[in-house]
């Protein structure tokens, strides 16, 4: 295997910002991507993650800040001078060129010798397992195959960095899982550094070494998937990481810790910062466990069967909705008692 990531140590985003008129699409985002690292930019739509990627690629100018590739400042360079690889959300394959010519496009621009181009294109196509489709036009391929062509076209130029803009969002659920594994496989095979934009937390958790959560153009949290999953920095990140239950409550210091009210009952929680008075409590649906004699009394309002488990909306004694995921069968109208472990009750200052 000769396709590899071009030698570099790190890409550094130094407080980059981008405004559109009065709108701050991106504000003071800093990030260092080391060689071989897979970083996901995660956030809801409109949070500035695609803007960030376009700025790194050079398709958009920065309003403020700088981008450094090792010692070289690259934010003033045009996209054609940066030498990054990019996979677009709609793949952006050249419809008039065969798969082979699409993949060869960047190498032709670099004026490589013909035999080298042929060899490297063949190799890239075998990395994405598309050898048999080389002579077809993009329009003759399925969505997943087009996706592979887009990846091959990006990696064949051996870029120091591959940028991916929601590459799986146009695929159906089954194919998305398949291609996710494929992206992971190609990444570990080539060792290319990757910045991957997505709004899907599961995708980010499963693929990335580190995740940068962007909301409203600002960095909310930067950390490993485990950090984000178990210790989200704020209620906003918690909501994004699947903490469906976000409840306002009053916090009381008690002998054995911090007590908050969930569903009208007092439970113990874990403070995530200096808390006093009003707080926001975050609990995952799967951490609310139906337990006989549990402290929280609730009535099942709605129960969805999800195959392996049930997803239920319950009404607590305090009147608020609680979301619960459980292996126990729950029926609408049924009264249940719920328990939750104190370390799974995250308490944020309101």
């Amino acid at each position: 295997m000769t396709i590899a990531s071009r030698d570099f140590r790190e890409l550094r985003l130094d407080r980059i910002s981008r405004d559109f008129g009065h709108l701050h699409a991106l504000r003071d985002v800093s990030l260092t991507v080391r060689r071989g690292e897979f970083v996901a930019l995660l956030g809801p739509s409109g949070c500035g993650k695609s803007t960030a990627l376009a700025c790194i690629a050079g398709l958009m100018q920065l309003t403020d800040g700088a981008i450094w590739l090792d010692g070289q400042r690259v934010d003033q360079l045009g996209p054609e001078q940066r030498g990054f690889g990019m996979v677009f959300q709609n793949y952006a394959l050249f419809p008039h060129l065969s798969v082979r010519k699409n993949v060869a496009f960047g190498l032709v621009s670099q004026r490589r010798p013909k035999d080298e181009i042929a060899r490297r294109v063949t190799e890239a196509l075998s990395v994405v397992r598309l050898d048999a489709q080389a002579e077809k036009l993009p329009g003759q391929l399925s969505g997943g195959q087009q996706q592979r062509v887009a990846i091959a076209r990006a990696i064949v130029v051996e870029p120091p960095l591959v940028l991916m803009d929601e590459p799986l969002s146009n695929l159906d659920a089954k194919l998305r899982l398949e291609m996710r594994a494929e992206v992971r496989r190609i990444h570990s095979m080539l060792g290319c550094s990757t910045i991957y934009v997505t709004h899907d937390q599961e995708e980010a958790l499963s693929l990335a070494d580190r995740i940068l959560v962007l909301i409203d153009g600002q960095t909310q949290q930067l950390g490993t998937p485990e950090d984000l999953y178990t210790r989200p920095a704020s209620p906003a990140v918690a909501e994004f990481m699947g903490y469906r239950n976000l409840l306002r409550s009053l916090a009381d210091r008690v002998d054995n810790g911090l007590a908050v009210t969930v569903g009208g009952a007092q439970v113990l929680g874990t403070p995530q910062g200096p808390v006093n008075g009003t707080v926001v409590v975050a609990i995952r649906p799967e951490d609310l466990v139906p337990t006989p004699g549990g402290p929280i009394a609730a009535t099942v309002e709605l129960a969805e069967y999800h195959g392996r488990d049930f997803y239920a909306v319950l009404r607590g004694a305090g009147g608020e909705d609680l979301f619960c995921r459980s292996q126990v069968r729950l029926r609408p109208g049924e009264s249940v008692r719920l328990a939750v472990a104190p370390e799974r009750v995250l308490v944020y200052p309101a």
Partner: protein
Amino acid sequence: MSAALDKTLRWRLRERGLDGVTLLVLPGVLCVLALFFYPFLYGLFLSFAPKQGGWMANYARFFSDPFLYDTIGTTLLLAVPVTLLNVVLSVPVALRVRLLHRQRLLTTILVVPITLGTVLVAEGLLTYLGPRGWLNRALMEFGLTTAPVRLIHNYWGVMLSLFITGFPFTFLLTLSYVTGIDPSLEQAGAVLGTRARGRFFRILLPLLAPGLAVTLALAFVQAFSVFPSAILLGAPAGPTRVISIAAYQAAFEQYDYPMASAIAMIMAAVQVVIVAALLGARSLVFRGPASTGKG
């Protein structure tokens, strides 16, 4: 029994997209038949019924008289360069305009010459480009020339008028083809290290080519049937004696309708040959949609 048959027939017709609504095309078909096919066929037959001589006499006369057959060359000499000029110029302009925010304003300004019609433009040019017109007076005032430059009553007058009335038309067509190209294709080219020139020749031009062939064909037909400006701005007796003038003279000066019809048929034949060649060339290039991706 017959009701059942009737139902299946209606069903089968509907499967092919034929039902009561299909009848709505009838008025349109009638118009085309009455206003296009009938005059065309009438002219075609008339051209084979000359005032004197055998049935091919009109065509024989046309191709033996240089005063007549030279009009083909004269017209092509006007129509081909101006068509190429219009289309070649409209591509860079359209590529630039695509990025503008005030696109509507600009396109409105450009549409004005189309709505004015060729006669008004020709009249305007006559005074503007004439020996005592603004252009010549300005040129002489700035000492750029000592005698007025002759721009009317010759080839250049007709050429300019065809350019002014033809450009907005080609531009608007080209603009619609250019905006149909997914901008992310060019971005993908740029990220892959391709400079603007390479992006134009390797991405935009191949995707534009089929549209440009159609634009060329339409612009050529328009220019080839030039008549008012060839008379008003040109030298209708000599260098700009285009084929439509020959037809006009046959019909309304010599009252020889069969000859005029023959000239009109020859004119149509030249146009058909060139348009067919252009559209045929289209099959040599990629003709699918200018974007990929599902969703």
